[in-house]
């Protein structure tokens, strides 16, 4: 067993992971505190100041409608993290359940679930999420639903593989031979020992969901305006790339740093 303190010490020793974790911590704090620390209302317009660059009042400049980019970035972080955490939690529960039942009991159940996984994996990348949000219309809950519709597959396959490994270990046979029911064996002995790789996968899952949400919002399928999202900020900004590149650069760098931080951790 590693104590939480030991994990923390190892993280600090590993500089990349430490920096990544620090950035993510800051990002979470900024997202939670956005209404308090954002210098302006993210939807507050001042048309005469449209597209102006960085200034003492507006550190990252203003967009086409004169909205403060820093404030929009801070509020956009809320959307990103909400989609990231929402998608992972909504995918991990059915994924674990299906993977565990499939791996533990095998047979027909396993065959059916795994064919279903193969089927969903035939849709490459964002395609299914694009199709689903295109039909449902843009909104936060639709994005989370669309991403989870495919998201659970990865967790199910991961847990299934782990269960297949753990199932054959001696302590599981010991539990069985003392008369534990199959469900009890699975829930008390097998599953807890199969969960650890899930943490790593979930971390990457948050990163993937953040990027996917930004991609959907970039296409106009993510979060409905005027709620700021990093993806829709890029989509709006790219029309002014010639005269006001900061509109695109600020959310672009925010996405890049977030994904990098997650990859380092």
């Amino acid at each position: 067993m590693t104590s939480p303190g030991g994990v923390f010490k190892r993280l600090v020793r590993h500089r990349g992971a430490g920096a990544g974790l620090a950035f993510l911590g800051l990002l979470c704090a900024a997202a939670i505190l956005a209404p308090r620390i954002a210098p302006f209302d993210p939807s507050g317009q001042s048309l005469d100041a449209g597209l102006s660059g960085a200034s003492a009042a507006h550190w990252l400049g203003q967009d086409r409608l004169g909205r403060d980019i820093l404030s929009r970035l801070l509020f956009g972080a809320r959307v990103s993290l909400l989609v990231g955490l929402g998608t992972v939690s909504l995918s991990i529960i059915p994924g674990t359940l299906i993977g565990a039942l499939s791996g533990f009991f095998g047979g027909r159940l396993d065959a059916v679930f795994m064919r279903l996984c193969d089927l969903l994996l035939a849709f490459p990348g964002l395609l299914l999420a694009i199709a689903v949000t295109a039909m449902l219309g843009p909104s936060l809950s639709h994005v989370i639903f669309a991403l989870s519709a495919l998201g659970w597959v990865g967790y199910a396959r991961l847990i299934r593989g782990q269960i297949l490994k753990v199932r054959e270990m001696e302590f599981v046979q010991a539990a069985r031979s003392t008369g534990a029911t199959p469900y009890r064996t699975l829930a008390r002995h097998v599953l807890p020992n199969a969960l650890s790789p899930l943490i790593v996968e979930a971390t990457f899952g948050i990163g993937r969901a953040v990027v996917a949400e930004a991609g959907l919002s970039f296409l106009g399928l993510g979060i409905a305006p005027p709620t700021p999202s990093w993806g829709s900020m890029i989509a709006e900004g790219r029309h002014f790339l010639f005269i006001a590149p900061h509109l695109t650069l600020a959310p672009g760098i925010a996405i890049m740093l977030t994904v990098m931080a997650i990859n380092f951790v």
Partner: protein
Amino acid sequence: MMRMALARLRQAVPVVLGVATIVFMLIHMVPGDPVDAMLGESAVAADKAELRRELRLDRPLPEQYADYMLGLAHADLGTSFRSREPVAHEILSRFPATLLLACASLAIALLIAVPLGIAAALRPRSWIDLLCGTSAMLGLSMPNFVIGPLLVLLFSIQLGIFPVSGHGGWRHLVLPAVTLGSGMSAILMRMLRSSLLEEAGQDYVRTAIAKGMSATRAIVRHALPNALIPVVTVMGLQFGALLAGSVITETLFSWPGIGRLMVQAIDARDYPLVQGCVLFVALLTVSINLIVDMLYAVLDPRVRHD
């Protein structure tokens, strides 16, 4: 070999049917009435009835499904609501542009990944390895919609080398292809490096070096062909992602391919066309994976005997 190919084909049949079924269900996910969504609430009732009949939405679900599947068997994907053209026709007219972009991206990804992957593997932990690792990290952290505008900013606006967007000569192709290929080149580079390092530790490479071959030559001549096998698999799997990723890249650069067609269809609420595009890209991915599986067997004789 032939038996394996047939077995793989047989495995693909249920996947194809399942993909078609999921795409069929998409239009029934539209909240409320899809006909209202397409024509607007205030449309004339006769128009609505006409469209409902045309989309066969007025019939029982099993009948709609049977019609749809029969249509598919004849490559009939329905009629575009916006242009009144057959969906299959619209998709095929846009397909060459998407295919060109995907192939160019793949070429660029390989052009970057293979030399850098070899260089990094030849001198692990050297400055060049570090440089490759860092740039792979950057490539993986920048989604298409981030790297695309950055490339436009640098190469079109600052340096004026390539056009901002559009479709025409090879100069129009460069930025979209780099945008789409960057992520893949990072993945392939990492893959090639680790697989080369693994092969380089094998006995047959040591034997070659012991017989007097230079280490570089031994790795390039003997280890590389074997190291490329997993790279080909990943490349095939990523090619599907490339086709799907082209939705964003084509939108960014106004590239007239299927991805842009899909986004335009979504904006116009042209649901039959959206369904057609999704189905086409998904089936294309399934076919590519099938081809890669078979290619894998050609490259690696061990697979054939499984």
